[in-house]
């Protein structure tokens, strides 16, 4: 029952909004009738949400009154021409004729869009007093602007990224995983280190680089395709080693 009564107000709101968001005639809304409806229903409202809907309906009706005012002003102005007539005529005209009509009624703004000597002086003073980038953000971001470099194992331990025991365990787990997955065959390096989180992917690549350096895993690259293969070694490899740089991109 209560919802049914509120539905009337919701319909009023919906009607007003549809008129506001289209070029429909605002006089299609019978303001007097809707106000009387709100007035008759007002004593029945007891809850806050009902009163809020009522005030919203009233607000929407005021918007329609505003539109009616604009509508009348426009219609009374010399710009009023029968809509169908003007639309038909615009459709009939070629683009060139439309352009010509526009240009003949156009008074372009004349303005100089350039810097003044005063502006130039202010810009110079600003530039002169501006601290270099590296100094400007020093306090906020202490390492802002530092070029990429290498972080070794000791530094990671000192930074608290992991403890020595966690690191050893991580190496052992990864080696076992590689042994199991490769099973004596070459497997795709990128697929092996793949993880939904970028951080985990980097950590796996970092640990794998340790296994390769220690000779517990090996790496093979295909220069033509750019693919990288890896495999686990059950015994430590001997012989000359070669350094390979592999970039790991976030979001891939």
């Amino acid at each position: 029952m209560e919802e049914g009564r509120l539905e009337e107000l919701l319909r009023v709101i919906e009607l007003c909004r549809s008129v506001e968001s289209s070029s429909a005639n605002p006089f299609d809304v019978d303001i007097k009738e809707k106000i009387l409806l709100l007035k008759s229903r007002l004593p029945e409202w007891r809850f806050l949400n009902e009163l809020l809907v009522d005030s919203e309906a009233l607000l929407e009706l005021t918007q329609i009154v505003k539109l009616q005012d604009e509508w009348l002003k426009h219609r009374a102005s010399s710009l009023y021409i029968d809509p169908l007539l003007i639309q038909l005529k615009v459709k009939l005209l070629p683009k060139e004729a439309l352009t010509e009509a526009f240009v003949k009624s156009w008074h372009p703004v004349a303005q100089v869009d350039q810097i003044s000597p005063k502006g130039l002086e202010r810009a110079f003073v600003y530039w002169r007093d501006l601290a270099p980038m590296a100094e400007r953000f020093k306090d906020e971001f202490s390492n802002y602007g530092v070029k990429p470099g290498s972080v070794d194992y000791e530094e990671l331990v000192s930074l608290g990224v992991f403890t020595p025991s966690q690191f050893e365990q991580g190496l052992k787990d990864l080696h076992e995983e590689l042994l199991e997955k490769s099973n004596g065959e070459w497997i795709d390096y990128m697929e092996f280190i793949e993880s939904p989180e970028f951080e985990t992917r980097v950590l796996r690549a970092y640990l794998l680089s340790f296994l390769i350096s220690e000779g517990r895993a090996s790496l093979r690259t295909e220069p033509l395709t750019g693919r990288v293969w890896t495999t686990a070694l059950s015994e430590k490899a001997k012989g000359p080693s070669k350094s390979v740089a592999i970039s790991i991109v976030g979001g891939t």
Partner: protein
Amino acid sequence: MESADRALLERKVRKAFQVLVLQRGRNPGVKGWEMKRYLGRDYRKIVDVLSEDISGLGLEVFEVKGADGTDDASRFLLRFKEPPTVSEAETSGIRIDDLAVLAATIAFINSKQGRAARREVEQFLREKFPKWRIEYSLDRYVKRGYLEQDDRTMLHVGWRTRAEVDEKTLMTLILSRAQEAPKK
């Protein structure tokens, strides 16, 4: 007029020209309250003198009334006294198609009592222009102030159109040209 008064007036007129000709901020023109700050309370007299002075150069000072109709909210700007020719407009780098889109849009909005849903405008223009050009042109004209788009995606004529375009002349020309069309 004494020479001191004349010198003061000339200085103020020069200042008014400088203030109006140099773009400050994103939109061209200077608000009434700014003119008062730069030129004093009698800035309208200065504007009248300036408008007369620059008339020989084919320019005029034009006032666009603000939303509340007060002097402070009015926008003053320098504009061409007479419209340019089509070839002059073309040499300024404006495409014929773009101007035709604007002309048709203004006419359509005016025919709808000053407001029209953007989708209606797009649908109307689609008979003459490709979709991509319509969207591009409408966005551009909204950005440049020729059209205004409210939060209900209703399009209105923008302040720049009110400043630069004689809408009555435009509507009359469109109507009269259409009447000539069958003769061709």
